[in-house]
């Protein structure tokens, strides 16, 4: 991981010095222990701030879209001959690169607007899991040593096996190496175990209907509608989100529980064929709502019904924007 970090800094420095990119979106050390936060570097002397470790959680594709979108807006009233181009360099692991592919498929920007610095990924540490293992105590210090995480809390120092605290979505990740990249910082990482991908979804789908509904409503009753899941999601980029539309008002803003359920159903359904399972929404949820269980179902259906892996191929259209004559139609109602 140190060698990746070193190479990453070198490449970032070179790209900035050669003016190949205007800004590098990457991760830097966070202010809290066991935490790395997104950072934006536009000066080649600052590239030493870049880090790559087990605590790089967020999907950076979100910022690429935001920055390019802001730039596009700022160019609106500029004379054609004075228009400038902005190129964003981004540190991308598998899921980030897939999110970028989705943006490109959906024509949000051009391929040459972004320089992808690929990093092979071995998963990130889930905040909730590590908090659980620390017994809910405040983590004062922490670091990774080999295959364990050493955590210092009030009651002493604890060793936690790294494998136990890696996020669920990383453990079953199919694309831990970038799908597309301009520069690779290291050779490909070892594959995770993607054959376990849908175990949880299959198990849940077999439960009785009422039990599934009870679980769904139980999870959604915890949702406080802070919209953090929406704000962090790289595939959620509508200028006006349906929850904020007032003509018509799609979702009530009161405390009615069905409004929350409907909001979540629709936000998740918007992810059909677009969710790359980066786990960002789960990581940021302050209430720990189990969103992934439902999002993964859409991912599974997309693959089983349309043979489409989200963000795996650049030239492929999104599954709900196209069709095939061979699409299954058993679900179509036939009257007697």
């Amino acid at each position, binding site marked *: 991981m140190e060698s990746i970090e070193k190479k990453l800094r070198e490449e970032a420095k070179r790209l900035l010095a050669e003016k190949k990119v205007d800004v590098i979106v990457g991760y830097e050390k966070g202010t809290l222990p066991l935490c790395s936060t997104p950072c934006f570097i536009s000066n080649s002397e600052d590239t030493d701030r870049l880090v790559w470790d087990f605590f790089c959680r967020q999907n950076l594709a979100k910022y690429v879209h935001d920055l390019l979108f802001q730039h596009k807006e700022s160019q609106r009233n500029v004379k054609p001959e004075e228009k400038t181009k902005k190129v964003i360099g981004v540190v991308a692991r598998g899921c980030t690169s897939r999110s970028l592919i989705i943006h490109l498929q959906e024509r949000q920007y051009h391929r040459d607007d972004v320089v992808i610095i690929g990093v092979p990924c071995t998963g990130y540490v889930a905040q909730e899991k590590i908090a659980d293992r620390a017994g809910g105590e405040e983590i004062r210090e922490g670091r990774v040593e080999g295959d364990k995480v050493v955590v210092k809390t009030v009651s002493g120092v604890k060793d936690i096996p790294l494998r136990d605290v890696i996020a669920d979505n990383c453990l079953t990740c199919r694309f831990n190496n970038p799908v597309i990249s301009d520069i690779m910082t290291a050779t490909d990482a070892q594959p995770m175990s993607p054959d376990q991908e849908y175990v949880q979804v299959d198990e*849940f*789908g077999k439960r009785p*209907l*009422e*039990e*599934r*509904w*009870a*679980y*769904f*409503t139980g999870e959604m009753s915890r949702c406080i509608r802070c919209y953090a899941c929406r704000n962090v999601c790289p595939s959620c980029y509508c200028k006006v989100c*349906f929850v904020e539309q007032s003509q018509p008002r*799609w979702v*009530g803003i*009161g405390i*009615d529980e*069905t*409004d929350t*359920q*409907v909001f979540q*159903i*629709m936000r*998740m*359904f918007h992810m*059909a*064929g677009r969710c790359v399972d980066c786990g960002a929404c789960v990581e940021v949820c302050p209430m720990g709502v189990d969103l992934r269980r*439902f999002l993964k*179902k*859409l991912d599974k*259906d*997309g693959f089983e*019904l*349309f043979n489409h892996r989200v963000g795996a191929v650049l030239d492929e259209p999104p*599954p*709900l*924007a*196209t*069709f095939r*004559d061979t*699409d*299954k*139609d058993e*679900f*179509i*109602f*036939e*009257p*007697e």
Partner: protein
Amino acid sequence: MAENRLNKGWEPKIVAFCCNWCTYAGADLAGISRIQYPPSVRIVRVPCTGRINPFYIVKALQEGADGVLVSGCHPGECHYLTGNLSAKRKFAMLKNFLSYIGIEPDRTVFTWVSASEGERFARVVQGVTDAVKVLGPMDKLAKRI
């Protein structure tokens, strides 16, 4: 729910999203041919099934529909050539997703009815009404205030 099911007076409310070019005409034909079918459907005319945002369906369920019927042109007969085919993909995923989170699959029904199939439209409505009657009133996701 069991009590409700025994409620003699209860009749299901079904929102039917009908394509302007086929099913809506089919429903019209059923009417002018004086074919009897349950009065449970409330028809919403849409230009094409491809125009239907899945949100309409979820929203109808939230606003008190006991079932939602979506009906468009048979594959290959779309007025806009392929609107119904891309709609089919959306509906397949929506139906799966709603039943995955625990909403009875029989409450969301998708079918094709052409302009000349007035009799088929009546049978579809009969079929959906019967299925929803078995399930009883929609108590999940329905907004009460």
